[in-house]
């Protein structure tokens, strides 16, 4: 029985090749998209999953009055370990935030993400270096580098560890011992590094509760009460901070809970100290994937029902031959299952082809094959789900045909399912229209962000990497003068932060009666000139005013607005225990991109609470760019006397452009989604119109005999579908509008929603509809009436 049914199913599919191709093609493309999304979601939610005690590891963070942070004081890890028996292991991690060289006589490499780890944390996260392992209780730092670095540092050399290497520029290097190599191929972890230094205690028994430079991890015992532990650590932390000299009434600790424990499984996607944007993106993509599969299932259902009449006779005959309705339901479900299986196989192939594109876009290493078994379990679930969703309804409809009516010969389609099929078709178009309009709106916002005046000019600014501190203006003078001599160089400056989206430091400043926490950036002369920032009132910093290096400050418009002063120039603003005289106000510029509004910021040359001024920016004439860069490169050792080993630079506009990466990803996702949904909707429409047109062939022939022209026939066949598409547009527009509005509201600087995406979506959907339907209509209209009316 099964074998025969299987054979018949194959013959049926083969007989209706076009429909089968449409059915399977549409579903397989949707499944391919879903497989990619599924891999992505599994990957993103699986960070550190292979860590042995995944469920019992927490990061300790602090809840500050205005934000949350995962930076904690050095001694915290140890006191937690000493006080709470339910905590098994604690340890610290510390990151470096700048690039620095590691060198030997033979070679030099740059580390961009060096990490300091307590032994215990390394163990907790299963990080195991190769080579000589130092004693766990050795208090010194043991450096491990990847093989790639090692081969450059010691080309063709037999090395006995530990071996001395120098950290930092040649002229200011510190010698440390290299203990071996470490290979971390799996970057699927929250703990990422290129080189790592391990130690018994990376803080060297630091007892300071005032600075918070360490991340603290704890691993609790099985069954520990996390909430209670969190409270206990909070109380302990407060006791310790007060013991270290803080006032018990300090608003940062009094009457509020400070410490939180963030489980490891949340750290990648929705850390408490950080944004949950990634989580939202993953969630949205997952939703999108499910939506696409559902559309494809709808399509499948639609097409199968549309073809149901062809199978009606078979149902009738089988019933009088002695088949139960249930037999037939199973038979049809099995047929649909086969098609779904085929679609899934095809989908896997398509996904395999799509993955490299997706991986490049999102910068991740997804693969169907090297993953674990979960994918295949998931695929099995998908297969069953898709079969049930797309198959159950047609199977029930088909198997319910009454033999008496279908065996009479001229069988009419059931009217009952018509509204359902129509609304399913409309739903597909609604979704396609949302994506078309959405894509156009995302495009528009991106275009705006690229073209809009960001308040500074990045196009001819080169950012030079450096780790030499130029905190005082006179330290930088010599380097600047040498650079200024190079033809084409207009301005040179150094600062603690550059407009690449990074967040500068914040501090509390008082102007008049108003006290407020605002951003501060430590700059040098010519900072504003280099970036071509516009002055609003007063003046820029100038070498002509001796006081500028001692106590002058410039505010931006937002800062002026924050303090609510009318004529700020000449007034005094106080912060970091010193008074600044405001000498100028600059126009706001979007140093941190388009999402957040420009922060109130104070710029000063002198700042006792400074961040290090290490970021050099040079404004060069576009025409002399190549020559000037070459000159800078050749003279760099003499210009930058301490960190002059290599001239390393980036163009500021490229750096700034990376801020748009998230939007560009979204744009690509929308592009794919729009193409996919249009494609699937058109497939559905194609088969649907073929079916209705075939059903109306008799009517068309009669009308032709009665004198209708071909054009009238085209019009008649198209009208219904055009109505459906128009209704879909009317439903799709407001939905697209609401979604676009929500998305645009995540930008402080955004476009008004234009009309044309909606018009274009309507136009595209209508034109595609007319084209698709007319292809079918043409066949029907060309059929000779004699042929069509022969059989009754």
């Amino acid at each position: 029985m099964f074998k025969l049914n299987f054979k018949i199913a194959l013959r049926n599919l083969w007989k209706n090749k076009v429909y089968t191709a449409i059915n399977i093609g549409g579903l397989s493309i949707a499944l391919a998209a879903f497989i990619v999304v599924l891999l992505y979601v599994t990957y993103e939610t699986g960070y550190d999953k292979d860590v042995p005690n995944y469920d019992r590891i927490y990061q300790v963070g602090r809840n500050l009055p205005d934000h949350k942070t995962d930076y904690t004081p050095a001694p915290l890890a140890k006191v937690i370990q000493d006080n709470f028996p339910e905590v098994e292991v604690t340890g610290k991690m510390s990151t470096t935030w700048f690039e620095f060289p590691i060198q030997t006589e033979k070679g030099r490499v740059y580390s961009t993400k060096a990490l300091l780890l307590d032994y215990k944390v390394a163990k907790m996260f299963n990080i195991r270096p190769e080579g000589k392992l130092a004693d766990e209780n050795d208090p010194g730092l043991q450096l491990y580098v990847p093989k790639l670095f090692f081969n450059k540092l010691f080309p063709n050399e037999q090395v006995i560890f530990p071996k001395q290497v120098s950290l930092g520029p040649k002229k200011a290097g510190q010698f440390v011992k290299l203990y071996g190599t470490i290979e971390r191929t799996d970057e699927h972890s929250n703990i990422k590094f290129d080189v790592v230094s391990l130690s018994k205690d990376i803080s060297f028994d630091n007892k300071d509760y005032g600075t918070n430079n360490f991340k603290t991890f704890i691993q609790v015992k099985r069954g520990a009460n996390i909430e209670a532990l969190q409270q206990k650590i909070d109380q302990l932390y407060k006791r310790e901070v007060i013991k270290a000299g803080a006032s018990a009434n300090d608003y940062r600790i009094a009457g509020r809970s400070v410490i939180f424990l963030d489980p490891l499984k949340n750290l990648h996607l929705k850390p408490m100290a950080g944004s949950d944007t990634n989580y939202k993106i993953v969630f949205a993509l997952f939703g999108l994937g499910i939506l696409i599969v559902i559309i494809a299932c709808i399509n499948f259902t639609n097409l199968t029902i549309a073809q149901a009449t062809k199978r009606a006779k078979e149902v009738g005959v089988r019933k009088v031959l002695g088949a139960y309705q249930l037999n037939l339901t199973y038979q049809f479900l099995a047929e649909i299952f086969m098609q779904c299986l085929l679609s899934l196989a095809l989908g896997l192939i398509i996904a395999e082809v799509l993955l490299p594109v997706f991986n490049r876009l999102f910068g991740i290493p997804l693969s169907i094959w090297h993953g674990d078994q979960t994918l295949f379990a998931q695929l099995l679930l998908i297969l069953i789900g898709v079969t049930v969703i797309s198959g159950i309804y047609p199977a029930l409809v088909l198997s319910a045909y009454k033999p008496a009516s279908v065996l009479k010969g001229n069988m009419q389609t059931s009217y009952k399912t018509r509204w359902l099929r129509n609304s399913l078709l409309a739903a597909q178009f609604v979704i396609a229209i949302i994506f078309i309009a959405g894509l156009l709106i995302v495009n528009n916002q991106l275009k705006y962000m690229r073209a809009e005046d960001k308040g500074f000019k990045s196009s001819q600014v080169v950012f030079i990497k450096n780790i030499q501190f130029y905190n005082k203006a006179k330290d930088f003078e010599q380097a600047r003068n040498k650079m200024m001599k190079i033809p084409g160089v207009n301005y040179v400056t150094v600062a603690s932060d550059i407009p690449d989206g990074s967040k500068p430091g914040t501090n509390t400043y008082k102007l008049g009666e108003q006290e407020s926490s605002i951003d501060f950036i430590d700059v040098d002369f010519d900072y504003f000139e280099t970036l071509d920032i516009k002055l609003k009132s007063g003046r820029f910093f100038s070498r002509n005013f001796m006081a500028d290096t001692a106590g002058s400050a410039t505010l931006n418009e937002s800062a002026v607005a924050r303090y609510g002063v009318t004529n700020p120039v000449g007034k005094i603003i106080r912060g970091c225990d010193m008074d600044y005289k405001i000498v100028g106000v600059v126009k706001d510029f979007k140093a941190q991109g388009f999402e957040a509004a420009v922060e109130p910021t104070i710029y000063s040359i002198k700042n006792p609470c400074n961040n290090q001024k290490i970021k050099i920016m040079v404004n060069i004439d576009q025409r002399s760019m190549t020559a000037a860069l070459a000159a800078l490169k050749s003279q760099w050792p003499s210009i930058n006397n301490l960190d002059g080993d290599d001239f390393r630079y980036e163009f500021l506009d490229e750096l700034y452009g990376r801020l748009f990466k998230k939007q560009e990803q979204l744009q690509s996702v929308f592009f794919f989604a729009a193409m996919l949904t249009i494609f699937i909707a058109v497939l559905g429409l194609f088969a649907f119109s073929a079916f209705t047109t075939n059903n109306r062939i008799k009517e068309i022939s009669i009308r032709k005999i009665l004198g209708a022209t071909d054009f009238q026939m085209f019009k008649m066949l198209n009208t219904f579908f055009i109505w459906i598409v128009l209704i879909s547009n009317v439903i799709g527009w407001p939905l697209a509008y609401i979604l676009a509005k929500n998305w645009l509201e995540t930008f402080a600087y955004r476009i008004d929603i234009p009309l044309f995406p909606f018009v274009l979506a309507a136009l595209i959907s209508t034109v595609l509809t007319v084209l698709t339907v007319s292809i079918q209509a043409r066949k029907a209209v060309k059929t000779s009436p004699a042929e069509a009316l022969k059989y009754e």
Partner: protein
Amino acid sequence: MIELKNIEKYYANKGVKSYVLRHVTTNIKQGEFVSIMGPSGAGKSSLLNILGMLEEPTYGQYEFMGEDVVSLSERKRVELYRNHIGFVFQAYHLIDEMTVAENIEAPLLYKKVPGSERKSRVADILDRFNMVAKSDLFPNQLSGGQQQLVGIARALVAHPTIILADEPTGNLQSVQALQIMDLFKKLNEEDGITIVQVTHSEVNAVYGNRTLHLLDGVVNEERNKIG
């Protein structure tokens, strides 16, 4: 084996009843060959559909082999199809995607006849109808008469007690039609299979030993064949 008492069938449309069958009362005995005759729209097919339990009468009593079958459960009805009733249609209604042999085998599959017996029964019947050479062809590769032969073979293979035939020769040329009618007669006389056929040809009707004349839903006259 069939007893109809006062069968009524009508469709109500906007309060107006349009009758298809009125007060049909008749008996069909085991081994009879009954022809139902009448002009188009007289209710012949409806009567046959009621006999085949494809339609339910609006009123009336219908007993099949002593069992009341009006509003029979699906399971019981399917059991009857499997074991007692064979259908033959005017339009043959072979399943297009199945070969001749597969079409004939289909009812045995539902009857859960074991594989080897299925094969031999299909082979027997193909042999009997001289269609062995055609067993792997698809219906659209056969002539109308051959298709109807397959249709009858399919009805016979399950060893039914009664065959219900709805204008079995309606789509056939006269020579082929004669062959089919001869076959029916032979099946009736030699195998003792009860046959009920709907026809509007006087020639075909006389093959039976009894004719029910239907006019506007009423059994007009019953005539038994003499001799």
